[in-house]
């Protein structure tokens, strides 16, 4: 069950060349600077743009230019959310949604109520698409793609026009689409939080080439990737196991390495299950002794693996180990020097519970 890509697309002076095999489940984030070729990759996969090479989705060969195979887009069964929406101007909102629904299988067309409800499209069904605001338009585009019951969902910055509240509301819906319907997605986004939340793996593109592909955890920790993607949000991704929910204080306790940490309630995860958390370097502080009388609840014993300082930066990155997990702390160089932090030193990592909550997407 894989999507095998060995594709070249030429657009003017730009050349995209991608050779990768992606699993056909979960969400693959496509990450990279503006002009990297993210949209071009998606368009090539969808068959909107002339491509050469070979694409095979599960058993179906979409493209094989050596044999002259090139399945037309509409038979590839994919949903596409365009960067600019591309709603049909001659249909109203309901017309746009029904357009997709009517062409999907019967089973899929039963999604109607769920999609409409989740994206809060009820109130605008009768509206002309010309009268929608930027955010409303993108919600309709998303709903339309979901209603077409695709085998693979290609999303080109679907949430960038939405406000934080709407993003926070729609993200879980995408998560559900991914988990419940096992709908594989390729997700282009500039937002690290969206990616962390949704993506199982990340494909980093720059200059039309794949710079990295791997598990979200691993990729987002790589400093070279971070400089490519222009993010300052270095961090570590850890896997923790839920062992209890505190319904009064609305906290969930998790075991992570040797430590127990708490974070805002994760009700949908039952005890025993594990979750993935992204802990940003900037949210981690270091103490030499276990501090008392402090509001920071999560104090994790750890050992310093490395301290990376750069005289051109005010910061030091401290790499920590706790049990089998890694953490990163970004502190000022001044602090690292004053505390005399060195590899091997046993310290305490301080992590605010609040930082583990719903991310600020």
């Amino acid at each position: 069950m894989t999507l095998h890509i060995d594709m070249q697309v030429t657009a003017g002076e730009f050349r995209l060349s991608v050779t990768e095999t992606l699993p056909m489940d979960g969400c693959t984030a496509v990450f990279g600077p503006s002009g990297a070729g993210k949209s071009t990759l998606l368009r090539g996969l969808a068959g909107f743009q002339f491509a050469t090479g070979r694409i095979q989705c599960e058993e179906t060969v979409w493209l094989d230019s050596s044999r002259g195979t090139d399945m037309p887009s509409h038979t590839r069964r994919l949903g596409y959310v365009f960067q600019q929406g591309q709603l049909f101007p001659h249909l109203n909102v309901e017309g746009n949604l029904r357009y997709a629904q009517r062409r999907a299988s019967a089973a899929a067309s039963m999604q109607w109520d769920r999609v409409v409800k989740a994206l809060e499209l009820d109130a605008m069904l009768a509206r002309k698409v010309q009268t929608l605001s930027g955010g409303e338009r993108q919600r309709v585009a998303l709903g339309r793609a979901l209603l077409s019951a695709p085998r693979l969902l290609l999303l080109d910055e679907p949430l960038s026009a939405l406000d934080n509240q709407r993003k926070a509301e729609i993200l879980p819906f995408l998560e559900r689409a991914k988990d419940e319907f096992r709908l594989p997605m390729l997700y282009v986004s500039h937002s690290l939080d969206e990616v962390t939340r949704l993506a199982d793996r990340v494909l980093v593109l720059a200059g039309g080439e794949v710079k990295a592909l791997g598990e979200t955890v691993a990729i987002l920790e790589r400093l070279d990737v971070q400089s490519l993607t222009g993010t300052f949000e270095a961090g570590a991704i850890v896997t923790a196991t839920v062992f209890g929910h505190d319904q009064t204080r609305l906290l969930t306790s998790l075991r992570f390495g040797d430590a127990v940490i708490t974070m805002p309630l994760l009700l949908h995860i039952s005890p025993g299950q594990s979750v993935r958390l992204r802990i940003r370097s900037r949210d981690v502080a270091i103490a030499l002794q276990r501090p008392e009388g402090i509001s920071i609840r999560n104090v994790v014993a750890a050992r310093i693996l490395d301290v990376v300082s750069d005289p051109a930066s005010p910061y030091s990155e401290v790499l920590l180990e706790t049990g089998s997990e890694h953490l990163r702390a970004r502190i000022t160089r001044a602090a690292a020097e004053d505390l005399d932090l060195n590899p091997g030193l046993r310290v305490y990592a301080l992590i605010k519970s609040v930082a583990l909550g719903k991310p600020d997407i």
Partner: protein
Amino acid sequence: MGLMGDLSTAIVLTAKLAGVTTLVLLVMATPLAWWLARSKRWFKPFVEAVTALPLVLPPTVLGFYLLLLFSPDSTLGGAWVDFTGSTLTFSFIGLVFASVLYSLPFMVQPLQTAFEAVDEELLNAASSLGASPFDAFVTVACPLALRGFLSACILTFAHTVGEFGVVLMVGGSLPGETRVISIVLYEYVETLRFDEAHDLALLLVVFSFVVLSTVYLLNRRLRFRIA
């Protein structure tokens, strides 16, 4: 058959001819216009040029050549007689053929212009939703080109109503068969029956005005609802 009978026959015949011609062209010219709007083939400009050619020949001359083409002695005309048992010349069906050929550019050009204005990305969107190219053409491109269809149909219909050079030559002015209003009106003017000519011309103009206004009004209403 009285004069009024004659006239009303001519009116019905004209409406029928213009209607059938418009319908036939709608069916024939739409795919052609679509192809012209989307194709990137090297020979496309030449097809475009051929499409516009019927315009440059004076109607009577075009009629002359059509007469040659349709004549039972010719290949086409002969084959037609063999198949249908009736001649293409001096028959309603022959008139339709002639009008279709003559009015082709009026249908193709506005449609092509309208189709060219349809955003390629919307067609991509349609195909991502599972619409085949034909489906997308019917459900996306055509509705978006609505105004082009309107314009094309009006030009074609009106032009067929007004045309008489070709019709006279190929049709032979047979009452009830090929004698359309424009020929009647022409005869009035030629025979200096000015009063009747004025009346008929006025009738034609008023009627056309009413029909056209209605179409345009509906179009507006339609667009307000659709877009």
